């Protein structure tokens, strides 16, 4: 799992690539912990490079959204591949 975090003054983009399973999710959560306290109001989680995702990906999205909600920031999840979308839909997350 590769995690690429790009920050500008008004946005934060987190790009994930590789398999997003329980093994990889620990590393992703660690990267969230390392984010600075002051975050932009707009955050994008780009899943375009994800080659496989199970329910660990749902926990990643919910964990990041929880972190951002503390500061009133919004999260957009973009470029989710078809396999990941099936997992989100099965979990009732149809608006990804």
């Amino acid at each position, binding site marked *: 799992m590769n995690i690429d975090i790009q920050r500008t003054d008004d946005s934060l983009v987190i790009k994930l690539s590789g*398999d997003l*399973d*329980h*093994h990889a*999710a*620990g590393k992703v*959560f660690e990267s969230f912990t390392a984010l600075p306290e002051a975050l932009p109001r707009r955050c994008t989680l780009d899943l375009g490079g994800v080659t*496989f995702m*199970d*329910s*660990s990906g*749902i*926990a990643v999205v*919910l*964990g990041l959204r*929880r972190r951002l909600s503390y500061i009133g920031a919004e999260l957009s999840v973009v470029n989710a591949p*078809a*396999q990941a979308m*099936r*997992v989100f839909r*099965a*979990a*009732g997350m149809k608006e990804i």
Partner: protein
Amino acid sequence: MRPTNELTLLLPSRSANESIARVCVAGFAAQLDPTLEELGDIKTVVSEAVTNCIVHAYPDTIGEIKIRCRTFANGVLEIVISDRGIGIPDIEKAREPMFTTGGEERSGMGFTIMESFSDSCIVRHRAGGGTVVKLSKRIEPRT
């Protein structure tokens, strides 16, 4: 009905083995000529079941995960994933969406996804301790 082919895997409950388990089972399932979507579903249910063993069955130790796969002439793939871990105290509760004892790094959607992506998902206590998850999925023949 006799199986047309079988595969048995034994893996230690290390998280690095999640990908090995799903790739091995997907390779075995390929003989049924699944679509990419069906193959993705198979990899997903295996990943969920193996992760449950790692997180819940063996939370403080490394134990053995056994995966037995069988194919049948009617196109059914059967996957049985078992462990000798601490077991699930309340299986019905564990199958409820969003229920987890795994902390914020787990979503509690593992069983919901296993049920959604398979034709049958049976969970039972294993005699002598542990849990058995039996998943079945019929691969429709393509014309």
